[in-house]
C-alpha cells in the first residue's frame, strides 16, 4: 500500500517534539553554536522525552514501544527543525541503542541496553566517520583482524559524538572483505580519545571527538551480531536516512523562516515576496522539502519492514544532501546581507546542511 499517513501515535509524537523543538531547542541553538557547548540540563531534558528508550523492550529497561524507523525519522525532522546540532546531540545515543536492538545478539542486548536505558542520560555512540578526503563509510580504512577469541582494531575515527562521555563506541571496521562493527568500551586498552572536541563547520553544539584505535582488542562477543556479524550495511542505511531526516528539518526551518521575512521585508517599493525571483526561490524550496521528506519516509519505511533499504537510503541521503543545502543556501539569499549575519539563523542552518551532507554514521533512525 502506498500511504503517507501517520499513525495516531506518530502524530502525537510529532506534535510533542515539534513543541519541544520550538520551545526548547530553537532558543538554545545560537548560543550552543557560538560557544560549541551544550547546556547542562539539555541532555537530561531530551532524555526524558524518551527518544532513545521508547523503542527498547521493557525487558532491557525500555518502554517497549514497537521499533519504528519512520517514527524516529519524523522525530528527527522535528528536532532538526529546532536545530540540527542539538538534534544530533539528542539522538546520538540512539545510534548505539538502535544498532544493538536491530543487529545485536541477545547477550549484547542484555549486557548493554539496561545501562543505556535508565532514567538518567547515558550513552554509547557510533564511530563510523574517518578522516581523509573522500571518506566512504562502506569501505572503512579502520581494520579488524581476527585473532583467537576476538579481534584487533586499528585505525582512526572522527566525528564521534560524545567522545567525552560515551561509555561505549560502536566502531565500524573492515574485516577482510566485509564490514563489521565492534563494541569498544571507553576504557579499552589502545583506545585514545581526543582530549578536545573537534572543530567543524557546523553541528557545533554537539561535542564530537576523534578516536585513535591502536591495536584495541575486543572479544568475539563484542562483534555486533556475534560471530555471524550484524547487518552493518543496514546500520549505515539507518544513518543515511537519519542525516537525511535532519536535512529535511533544517531545510523546512529555512523555508518557514524566510516566508514571513519575505512578506515583511520591503525593497524597491514592495514586499520582496511579491518579486518572482524571491517567490520562486521559496516555492522551489518548499517543493524540495516535500520531495526530500518522502524519500526519507520511503527509506525509513523499508528499514522498518526489514527490507533492503540501501538504494532508498542512498536516494534519501543523496537527494536531501544536495537539496537541503540548496534550500538553506537560498535562505541566505532571500535575506540578503542580513542572511549573512549571525543575527538571523539561516547562516547556521546553511552550515548545518553542508555538514550533515558529508557525514555518514553519526546518528541513526
Amino acid at each position: 500500500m502506498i500511504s503517507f499517513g501517520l499513525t495516531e501515535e506518530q502524530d502525537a509524537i510529532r506534535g510533542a517534539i515539534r513543541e519541544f523543538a520550538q520551545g526548547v531547542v530553537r532558543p538554545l541553538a545560537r548560543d550552543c553554536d557560538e560557544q560549541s557547548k551544550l547546556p547542562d540540563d539539555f541532555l537530561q531534558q531530551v532524555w526524558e522525552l524518551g527518544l532513545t528508550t521508547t523503542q527498547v523492550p521493557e525487558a532491557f529497561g525500555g518502554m517497549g514501544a514497537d521499533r519504528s524507523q519512520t517514527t524516529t525519522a519524523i522525530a528527527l525532522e522535528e528536532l532538526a527543525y529546532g536545530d540540527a546540532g542539538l538534534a544530533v546531540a539528542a539522538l546520538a545515543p540512539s545510534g548505539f541503542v538502535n544498532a544493538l536492538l536491530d543487529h545485536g545478539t541477545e547477550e549484547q542486548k542484555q549486557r548493554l541496553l539496561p545501562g543505556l536505558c535508565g532514567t538518567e542520560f547515558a550513552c554509547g555512540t557510533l564511530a563510523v566517520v574517518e578522516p581523509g578526503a573522500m571518506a566512504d563509510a562502506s569501505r572503512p580504512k579502520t581494520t579488524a583482524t581476527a585473532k583467537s577469541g576476538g579481534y584487533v582494531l586499528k585505525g582512526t575515527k572522527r566525528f564521534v559524538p560524545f567522545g567525552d562521555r560515551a561509555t561505549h563506541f560502536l566502531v565500524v571496521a573492515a574485516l577482510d572483505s566485509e564490514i563489521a562493527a565492534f563494541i569498544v568500551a571507553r576504557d579499552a586498552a589502545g583506545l585514545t580519545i581526543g582530549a578536545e572536541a573537534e572543530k567543524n563547520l557546523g553541528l557545533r553544539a554537539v561535542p564530537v571527538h576523534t578516536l585513535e584505535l591502536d591495536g584495541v582488542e575486543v572479544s568475539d562477543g563484542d562483534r555486533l551480531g556475534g560471530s555471524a556479524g550484524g547487518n552493518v550495511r543496514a546500520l549505515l542505511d539507518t544513518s543515511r536516512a537519519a542525516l537525511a531526516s535532519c536535512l529535511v528539518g533544517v531545510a523546512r526551518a529555512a523555508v518557514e523562516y524566510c516566508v514571513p521575512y519575505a512578506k515583511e521585508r520591503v525593497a524597491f517599493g514592495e514586499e520582496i515576496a511579491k518579486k518572482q525571483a524571491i517567490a520562486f526561490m521559496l516555492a522551489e524550496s518548499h517543493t524540495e522539502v516535500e520531495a526530500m521528506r518522502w524519500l526519507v519516509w520511503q527509506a525509513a519505511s523499508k528499514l522498518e519492514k526489514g527490507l533492503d533499504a540501501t538504494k532508498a537510503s542512498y536516494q534519501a541521503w543523496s537527494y536531501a544532501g544536495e537539496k537541503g543545502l540548496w534550500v538553506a543556501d537560498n535562505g541566505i539569499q532571500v535575506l540578503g546581507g542580513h542572511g549573512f549575519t549571525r543575527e538571523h539563523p539561516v547562516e547556521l542552518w546553511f552550515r548545518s546542511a553542508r555538514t550533515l551532507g558529508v557525514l555518514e554514521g553519526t546518528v541513526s533512525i
Partner: protein
Amino acid sequence: MISFELSEYDRAKLDAIKEEGLICRKYARYYDEHEETEIPPDELPEAKDFAPTPNLASRQSEEDSGPSVMAMLYTVYRCWGDYAVKLRQPKAGGLGNAALMAAGTDEQKQRWINNFLAMAITEPGCGSDPSRVTASAVLDEETNEWILNGEKIFVTGGVRADGVVMWATVDKSAGRAGIKSFLVMKGTPGFEVAKKEKKLGIRGEDTATYVFSDCRIPRDQLLGGNEEVQKKGSGGFRGVMKTFNMTRPAVAAFGIGISEAALDFTREELEKAGVDLDYGAGMGNRSAVAEKFMKLEALHEASKLTVLRAAWLADQGQPNNMESSVCKAHAGSAVREITQGCIDILGPLGVSRDNLVEKWMRDCRIIDIYEGTGQIQRLIIARGLFDYTRDDLN
C-alpha cells in the same frame, strides 16, 4: 501508516499495465514519425488481447492502495509504455474526462463517460492563464442553448477527441467567477477543428486549434450544471479550478512514466557495459556515469513520490491544490533533467533514432509546459506559502 510497498494485488495490476505498455511501445516510433498521416485506428492489432483496464477503485484488502494513487500509477506505467500509444486505448480518457469526473453531474458523467473528451482552455492571447479566458458563452433563454464563441489553441487530443470540455466566460465583468466549462461534442455546428500542430514531441498525440463561431449547445451541457456567477473573490472559480487537482498530478505522472522508461533503458546499457551501481558506496568509489545515473534515479524517485502524495491526499479527501502544483513543478523540471541526463550517459547512442531515448526526451519536454507551465505552478505554490491572492503575486 507510512508505507511505500505495493500489495501483490496492486502489483499484479501494474504488471499487466506494463506488459501492455511494452506492446504499445512497439508502435512508439511509428507514431512519432507519422504525425502527417491520418490518425490510425484507436485499436492496436494486439489491443484485443489486452486485459480489461482494472477497476481503479477495486481494493481487495486494506493493504491495497487508494484509487487516486492507483490511477496515477496506471498513468505512469502506460506512459512508460509510450506516451502517445497509451492514449489510443479506447477506454483511456483525455483531460476532459478527468474534468467530467471531477466536476460533472452524475447524469453528465453517465452520458459522456464513454467518449474521449479533450480539454480546451488556452487561447492565443491568454497563455497559461485560465482566468483570462475570453471565449464567451451566452445563454439564449428562448432556445435554452449556450452560444459559444472563441478560439482555443493547444487542445491536446483535439483532432481525435469525440468532444471537448471548453472554458468560456458567461460574464466578463465577473472575472474568474464568470468562467464555466462546457461540454461540446464534435459535429456540433459552429465548432471547427481549424489546425493541427507540428510539435517537438508527443507527435503521436494530436494537438489542435478549435474555433467556436456561434456554436450552440443545449443548456444542460454546462459542466456541473451550476449557472450561478459568484461574486468576485468569493471562490466561485474554485469549482472550475478543482478539476485541475488531479490533472496536474496526472500530467506529472505522464512525465514520470517516460523518464522511468529512459532510466530503465539507460540502466540496461550500463549493465551491458559492466558499470557497477553500488548504492552503499561513497562518491569516491563510484564511476562518473554511475554517480550521474544514481542521482537521476533519486531525482526520479523524489518526483514520483510527490505525485503519489498529491494523489494520496485526494484519496483521503484532503485538499491537494498546493501538492498538485508541487508535483507538477517538480516533475516538469525533473523529467527534463532526467531524460536529457540519460543522453549524457548514453552519448551518441542516446541521440540516435534507432532507439527511443531521444524521443522520450522530446516527449517529456511538454510536461513543464501544458496544464500550466512550471512558472505558473511556482506562482500557485508561492501564493499558498505566502497566503497571497493572484493580485498579490503574479
